[in-house]
Structures are given as C-alpha cells and as structure tokens.
C-alpha cells in the first residue's frame, strides 16, 4: 500500500487531481450545512451578478442561488457517476469474465450482444433510453450504465483470455478447483488494476453524460444538477453570464480532476508503464 502511494504521488498532476476531487466531495457532503435551504427556492432578486445581493456566484432568472445549486448539484453528479460506474463495472465484469474464460460459443454470444450495444452512439442511446423511461434519477443511472458497460466487458474479456492459460490457473484446475472460484478468486484479482483505472475514467464520462442529459432537459426535474443549471441559464448567456459559467467550470474541474486521478492510477497500478519517463 505504501509503495502504491509512492508510485502514485510521483505523478504530481494526479495528486493535484486527487486534491481537487477531495474538495468537490467535501463540498458535496457539506452542501446541506452551508446551504440548508432547497436549491430550488427562489428569491426576490433574479439575475443578480456574482457578489450582488448576497449571492456568492449570482442568481438565476427566478432568483435561485447559483452557488447553492452548484454545491447541491455536486452531490447529484458524483452519486450518479459513482453508482452508474459501479453498476457498469459489475455487469461488464460478469460478461467479460464468462466470455473470456469459457471462450467458444459462450464468448461468441456474449460478445455479439456487447457489440450490439457498442454500435449505437452512446450519447444518442442514453437520450433514447431516458426519453423512453421518463426522466428521473433512476432512469439516468440506468441509461449511463447501459451505455458504459460494454467497454468494461471487452477489457475484462481480454484480461481473462490472457490469464486463463497461465500456469497458475492450470495449477488450480489440477487441484480440482471449480470454475466460478477460479474466475472470481484467482483470475479476477489479477485484473483489478485495469478495471480500477477504466472505472475511474468512467466516473468522469458518466458525469459528462448526466450533465448532457440534464442540459437537454432529460435530467430529473426535482433534483438540482449542474447540467440543469446550464440548460436553465443558456438562454440568458448574454445578460447573465454567471448562470452557465460557474456550473460549467464545476463540470470542467471535476472531470479533469477525475481524469488526472485515473491517469495517476494507471501509472501506479500498471508496472509496465511505470518507467515511462
């Protein structure tokens, strides 16, 4: 664990990313304390600039506090990103593990299914799914999961294909170990590193998809999110630039931070690339 941290911290931008991510998580967790009111609560002061009328980052067309929206929206974005990614990794690992381990017909069937999902452009597919299901937090999570698991499945399948013929796996066969145990207890721990890396990057993508959906009006109308704020402020970009800009910056910084952390994890967990510089 110590040596892992040493390797991770060698990448300075990854540490910076982790720091920023920590701040965003912190902000999300104390949102209810610093802005105890509902972020949808409107005030008497619409379209106040940053710092005017007691609004740190200004207010929107019906007087909602942008800063409060960002703080509460952080919770939404991170949760959706995390849950969707966990679900996608779970499905992807199962598909990939079975396809890679058994090969042959099982592999063919599972991979053709995966390919069906991969052939549809992911964002269009997500829009379609949310539109069919009716916009809500659950439908957004499901849509993001459905469009992101195939990448995990392909990755895990590749790892399993490479590992299943290794001698230590053969040794398990000679001991009479069962298939599921070989897959889950012997092979899977050996492909955790790439899964963690792809998972961390998927959180960033999930946040972007969620914002995109909310921007198109397909987010949950009862939950504050960054995409919703941008979509709301879009028509007033010329008169009130702050409504769009600050949530946009929040998305940019968060996604960037997660990507940096993912890169750092990749360097730290992937011994072959470690001596890259």
């Amino acid at each position, binding site marked *: 664990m110590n040596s892992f941290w040493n390797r991770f911290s060698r990448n300075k931008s990854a540490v910076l990313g982790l720091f920023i991510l920590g701040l965003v998580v912190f902000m999300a967790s104390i949102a209810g304390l610093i802005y105890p009111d509902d972020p949808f609560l409107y005030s008497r002061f619409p379209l106040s600039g940053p710092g005017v009328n007691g609004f740190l980052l200004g207010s929107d067309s019906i007087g909602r506090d942008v800063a409060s929206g960002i703080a509460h929206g952080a919770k939404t974005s991170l949760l959706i990103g995390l849950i969707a990614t966990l679900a996608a990794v779970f499905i992807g690992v199962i598909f990939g593990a079975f396809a890679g381990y058994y090969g*042959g*017909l099982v592999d*063919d069937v599972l991979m053709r299914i995966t390919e069906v999902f991969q052939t549809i452009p992911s964002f269009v597919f997500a829009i379609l799914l949310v539109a069919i299901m009716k916009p809500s937090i659950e439908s957004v999570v499901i849509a993001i999961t459905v469009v992101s698991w195939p990448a995990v499945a392909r990755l895990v399948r590749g790892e399993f294909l490479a590992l299943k013929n*290794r*001698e*230590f796996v*053969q*040794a*398990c*066969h*000679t*001991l*009479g*170990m069962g298939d599921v145990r070989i897959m889950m207890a*012997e092979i899977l*721990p*050996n492909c955790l590193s790439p899964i963690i890396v792809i998972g961390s990057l998927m959180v960033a993508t999930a946040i972007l998809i969620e914002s995109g959906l909310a921007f198109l009006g397909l987010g949950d109308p009862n939950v504050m999110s960054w995409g919703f704020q941008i979509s709301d402020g879009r028509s007033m970009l010329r008169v009130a630039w702050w409504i769009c800009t600050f949530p946009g910056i929040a998305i940019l910084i968060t996604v960037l931070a997660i990507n940096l952390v993912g890169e750092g994890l990749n360097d730290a967990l992937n011994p072959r690339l470690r*001596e890259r510089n």
Partner: protein
Amino acid sequence: MTNTLLTISNLDISLPEGSERSLAVENLCVDLAPGETLCIVGESGSGKSLTARALMGLLPAPHVRVSKGSINFCGEDLIQASERRLREIRGSEISMIFQEPMTALNPVMTIGTQIDEIFRYHVAMPAKERRQRAIQLLEDVQLPDPEKIVSAYPHELSGGQRQRAMIAMALSLEPKIIIADEPTTALDVTTQAQILKLISDMQALHKTGVLFITHDFGVVADIADRVAVMQNGRVVETGSVDEVLNRPEHDYTKKLISSVPSLIPRPPRTRSADVVLAVQNVQKTFGDGKSFFGFGKPNRVVHAVKNVSLELCRGETLGVVGESGSGKSTLARCIIRLLENDSGKIMLDGINLCDLNRKEMRPWRAKIQMIFQDPYASLNPRVKVGQIIAQGPMIQGANKKEAEARTRELLEIVGLDERAFNRYPHEFSGGQRQRIGIARALALDPEILVADEPVSALDVSIQAQILKLLDEIRERMNLSMVFITHDLRVAAQVCDRLAVMRYGEIVETGVTGQIFNAPQHSYTRDLLAAVPGQKWDR
C-alpha cells in the same frame, strides 16, 4: 596477446538508486584478440548481458550507466566516443547477435530489407548490388533457398533459420567483433549445435573476435578459447577453457561446474513391476475449430500427440525427452487432464480417467499432480503462499486447520522457512518459487507427479538443488514421476527410463543407460550427438 582488439579495463556499471546492489558490473577487466572466442559465463543477474550492452553503448541510460573504466577498441575509448561515432561502429565494426531472434528482428520487414538497411546506412552501394550481397550472405550462413528468404518475413522462418538470418546480418559488414548474447538459449539442441558450428566457421573465415555470453557450460566447453566467470557483477576467474573447466580455482566456479549434470547416466535402480499409470494410444490434435457461423475453411490441424502409449511403474521416473514442438508438454497436459485427448485411454488404478467428467475427476485429481515449468507464472501473484499450498487439501475436503498444519510441514520438507506462509510469491526467488510449486503439488499426497520442465527456467546451481529435492521427496513419498525435459543432461541424472518424442510420436523407449550408450533410432543418435560439451564430460 600482442594485438588485442578490445580491452575492457576497470569497468563499473552503476544501477539506479534503490536497486539490489549499487553496481551491476564492478571492476571488470577482460580483453579479446582477433579470431578468439571469449566466453563470459554466469548465472542470471551476474551482469553479463549488461557488459555486452555497455560495449555497444546500449545501456538503458540514464538509469544504468558506465560510471568508471574504459573500453578500448583498437585504440579508441568507446565510453568517450560520440553517439555519432558509436553508430558508425555498431553493425560495421562491432555487431551483436541477440538471444531471441523473433524479437530482435522486425516482424513487419522482410529479412532482405533488414539486411539492406545495414548496407544502406554504412556503405554507398547501388540497390542491385546490395541485394546480391544480401543473398550471398544468406547463402554463407547456409540458409536454404536464399532468393526466397530474402523476401520472407521473420515469422515465416523457423527459430534456427531466424538465428541464421541474424548471424548473416551481424556478419554483413565483416565486423571485427561479434557479441553473441545467449544466441542459442532459445533454440533446440540440434539447432544449437548447427548454429554454434556456423559461428565458429564464420569466425575462422573472417578472423573475428567473438564475445560469447552464456550460462551453459556445455556450450563453453565446445566453443570457448578463454573463459571469464562472473558472479554478482565481478569476474571471479579468467583463464583458458582448459584451465577454468578442468582445474577451476575459485570456489564459485567449482560450485557451478559441479552443478552441471553429467551426461553419464547414473546407475539404474531396481524397478517395480507394478504399473501405476498406463497411457494407451493417446491422440491429440489442435485447431479443427470452425468459425461462429460455420463459414470459412477449417483451420490448419496440428497433430500434437499421435498414438502415444506409455507405462509408468511404481517409484520410477520416466523421462519424456524431445525438442520443442515434439508434443511432450501436450502429452503431459493430457495425462493430468488439463487437455481432453481425442482418443485413447489414460488408466490410473484400473480406471480410465478420460471417461470421467469434471466432478467425477475431482477425487482423482489428488492422485496425480503437476509441477510447472515457469516458477514466475505458476504461482498466483495475488495469493499468499500458505493459501496457495493449503487450497488443494481444502478443495479435497480437509478442514482449514489440517490444511494449514500440512502446509507448514510441507514448507519445511521443501526447504522453506515457515514464515513463507504469510508472504506473497513475488518476495521469493525463482528457485524458492519452484519449491513452493512442488509443495503445492505434494499437498494432496499424490501418487504420481508430472513435472513439465521443472528446472529449465532455473540457473544451474539452483537447478541442482531442485533436482536433489525432487529426488529426496521421490524416495520419501515413494512417488512415481513423469519428467518432461529437453535437457538430456538433466534426463541422464533424473530418469530411470526414457521415452524420446519427435513430431508427436515416441520414437524410442528404454532404460536411460541403454538409450545413452546404444541409441537405436537415428533421431535419438542425433539428439545425443548435439548435446554440447561432450568431450569435456568424458
């Protein structure tokens, strides 16, 4: 030695901080005369390959670099030489032959183009003439049909042919020195013998100095004029081949030489008549799979094992010897039921194992266990050693406590500290890992061990220890063993009987001594004749 080509004096190569030792090579002094072959021998990690790379200016800088000393090549210090000058020297005056010809050749360029590159870079010559020269070179290294090979890609050639092509490239500009870094380690013995002969022929013809790096004392005995023995980055002994091999001075050299298994088979042991395992007419083919929708041609079919029958008696060690591709590993995996054989029977205690399905097979697994070749690949890096050994008995129904007690006992039997129990495999050396692999196989109290090249990935001194350990446990537990190997020296010392395999068939079986002294089949004779270092043995 009046005219030396190369003098290395007081060479230090430093490793990056935090490495096991600070200097990879320490105070190295050797020299090389024209037409001479200097062998640098040593075990893995002795610094012999880094020395070769230092000569070519190919150290992985900036982490590893020459920190002291000089490399004097015909009056020029290569360490001070500019990168430009080094490029001129490489290939034209000093050239190198690598261990693995498949990775040393560029897979997307034809052999001809790769030879052509050397001429294009170093000498001005019209394209037509360059092609002529390339063909001539391929002919010189006795490649069949050079016209065709010039336009072949590396994967279209066999291992031996690729190594010949590498030698052709190395010789293309008639260099003064050839550095050969384990050039025959990846090759079969018969091919190795041919390549060694080729190198010494070429050397005699061109008066080239050869710096030959190897771990194999048999090879040293065959080709060296002088020998330098390296241990942990230092040269511990240098001298003529006769001095070093027959009258070694240094303790380490003595230890290494005594570890080399002798080619003279050890006296036969009394043989029990009780057959424990019978392999009857086993066949195995690969690659008749069809594509998903049944379109396309069926793949090329390889007959890996053809109609093989063997009998293993209680307490004996049956060696299966053969070169790569002979089907010996496939046979081992069929016996252990890692692969389904297409037809034939594998009889253990009167039961045909091939008839059993996975679940029925489970209790039989305990009776027949395997030791794998690669100690780095055969242990799961994410599982603790104790768990690796204990999981076998636990799958077979032992409770946790019993399994752990048995594991600790086994660790002691294979000569490991009990503290190994809670460690991960990467904390152990290759030899120790192989001991863990042996302990895992023994944990189920098997009757039969199938050992697939158990020592071929190990250094010679470790190899001797592991062979000794296998011998001890065989006596102690009255094990019968199928021992797969390509190394006839090892086979001579371990096996009671031998089966010689070629192209999936057994060409000859017999008592080890008989096969060594009076081989019947011509292939067995070829194999025996190709073992390096025979004159040194006798």
